[in-house]
């Protein structure tokens, strides 16, 4: 009896039953569908951006360009404001990320020291900021009083340290072998030296995660540009320029409307808002899409550290 049952089980493990086959097929089909739904809009946008602008208005472009042209990209990068916006986007991303990573790690290091007398005070004052915020208008008035409106600093100063990043890095440091930090101290290194020479390099995985989150956040921000710097052309960013194009070509509009608009404006003979929009969507997304897959193993871990301790 028992023997027979075991044999039956072996059979089931060795060869899949009909039900298993059906499940495998349905499961894989659904996952492939998910991949298509995720990728198709980007591929379609890429195809439109690489297609002749007036030709795109006829519609019917799906996976690849019909009349290949680089005119859209040429236009986008020669439009001086967009080149400048790209520069501002890069600057705010680089400066903002470097500053956030360094400062967050430094404060995280201090609140990871068990002997630090202000440890609780510093931790709580940062943690509380996760639970409330001043709101739009009070923050706006503060920025005005600080003289940050209409400056590049508005992208950097309000965003130096986030409570979530702080907790993630602190948890990581607390899990490092304490002997490393102790031995550095015995060798006569001060707190700052210990932090820079010992702790920072050991934190590379978690700092990569924080850098990715901060970098993506900075790169993708447009609301602060809209709110504080919308009258300063030279401080505009790529995302905000794209947002303006989107707002102009409202959801209700069709390509046909653009055609009429294109016919009217003589300067827009080669390009159309529809094509510009697709091109800018690609320009804005490519850096992010190129970076995140390489940091995948870090951010997956980083997410979990954050999840474990609040």
């Amino acid at each position, binding site marked *: 009896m028992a023997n027979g049952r075991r044999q039956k089980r072996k059979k089931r493990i060795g060869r899949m039953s009909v039900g298993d086959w059906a*499940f495998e097929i349905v499961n894989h089909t659904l996952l492939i569908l998910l991949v298509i739904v995720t990728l198709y809009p980007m591929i379609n946008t890429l195809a439109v951006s690489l297609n002749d602008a007036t030709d795109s208005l006829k519609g019917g472009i799906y996976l690849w360009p019909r009349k290949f042209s680089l005119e859209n990209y040429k236009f986008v990068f020669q439009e001086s404001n967009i080149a400048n916006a790209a520069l501002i986007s890069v600057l705010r991303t680089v400066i903002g990320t470097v500053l956030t990573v360094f400062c967050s790690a430094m404060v995280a290091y201090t609140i990871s020291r068990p*002997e630090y007398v202000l440890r609780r005070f510093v931790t709580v004052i940062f943690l509380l900021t996760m639970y409330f915020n001043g709101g*739009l208008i009070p923050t706006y008035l503060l920025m005005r009083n600080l003289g940050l409106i209409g400056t590049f600093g508005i992208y950097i100063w309000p965003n130096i340290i986030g409570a979530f990043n702080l907790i993630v890095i602190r948890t990581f440091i607390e899990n490092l072998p304490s002997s490393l930090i102790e031995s550095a101290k015995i060798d006569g290194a001060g707190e700052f030296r210990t932090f820079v020479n010992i702790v920072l390099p050991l934190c590379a995985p978690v700092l990569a995660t924080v850098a990715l989150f901060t970098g993506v956040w900075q790169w993708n921000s447009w*609301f602060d540009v809209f709110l504080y710097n919308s009258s300063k052309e030279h401080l505009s960013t790529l995302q905000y320029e794209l947002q303006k194009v989107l707002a102009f*070509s409202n959801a209700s509009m069709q390509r046909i409307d653009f055609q009429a608009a294109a016919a009217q404006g003589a300067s827009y003979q080669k390009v159309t808002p529809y094509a510009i929009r697709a091109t800018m969507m690609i320009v804005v997304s490519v850096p992010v899409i190129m970076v995140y897959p390489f940091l995948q193993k870090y951010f997956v871990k980083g997410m*979990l550290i954050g999840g474990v301790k609040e």
Partner: protein
Amino acid sequence: MDNNLALTKTATSTKQKPKGRKSFFKLLVQQRALVLMSIPFVIWVIIFKYLPIWGWAIAFQDYKPAKSFWEQEWVGFEHFKFLFTNERFLLVLRNTIVMSLINLVLGFVTAISLALMLNEVRNMAFKRTVQTISYMPYFLSWVVAAGIIQNILAVDGVVNDLLKFLGLIEEGEEILFLGIGEWFWGIYGASIVWKNVGWNTIVYLAAIAVIDPGLYEAAEIDGAGRFRKMWHITLPGIRNVIIVLLIMNIGYLLESGFEPQYLLGNGMNIDYSENLDIFVLNYGIRLYNYSLSVAASIFKTVVSFILITAANSIAKRIGEVRLY
């Protein structure tokens, strides 16, 4: 920074454990390197995050931007009274809560389903490829996502093309999806899922990964099939994570997001797309009614604060009980 370094050199004795009789200030001097490394940022956080609370006073004044703070007329809770009798505000509140709930329910169901589906894939290369691709929309900005959604839902977009191909609508009957107010919540839900579902699986997949493989083997010996294993082992195994995340998310009930509603909203769907954040923005920036705008954002912050604090303490209690 050099200055900092010089100071830290004299403070190497900080590694000694603090002794009870040592005075607080003595320790503070001894640990001045740590103090110097953290206190500037405490000042920063007080200025940038705590100081704006002072501006809440505006909600209790009849604020005129031309006058100074002390010249403003105080009106007590008048703006709050106005809010709660204002039809628009109540509509906006409804939209906020409904969209939050949609986000919550859809977000959980889709992420858990996808995590279970991915967990059943044996081919590691396929699994990893699907995962990597599914994270992509999370990293795209909402501006790009809104552009994509507008494109595919346009009258000449791919969704209408598909409906025509399937014969569900005729040429000339194309649907203007974003122009139908009642459909906005559905579009919002689908957009949120599209953008976040892959990302949200990370935590569930990690929870599934630590389930004892012995349990599955035992179940297999008992003759449990794939679905019974999912139901009796995988789901109970990630139950704690689900419960804790669910409670935490309920804390963010009034935080239904701002960008998707703002970027996808238009004159035709505004009765369904406008939420609290947009209301605050409209009254504050467009209509210059600072007092009403601040009153609305105070309401939001206070309710959120209560909800999040409650949710956190409940989650912690459950977490402790369930995590042995």
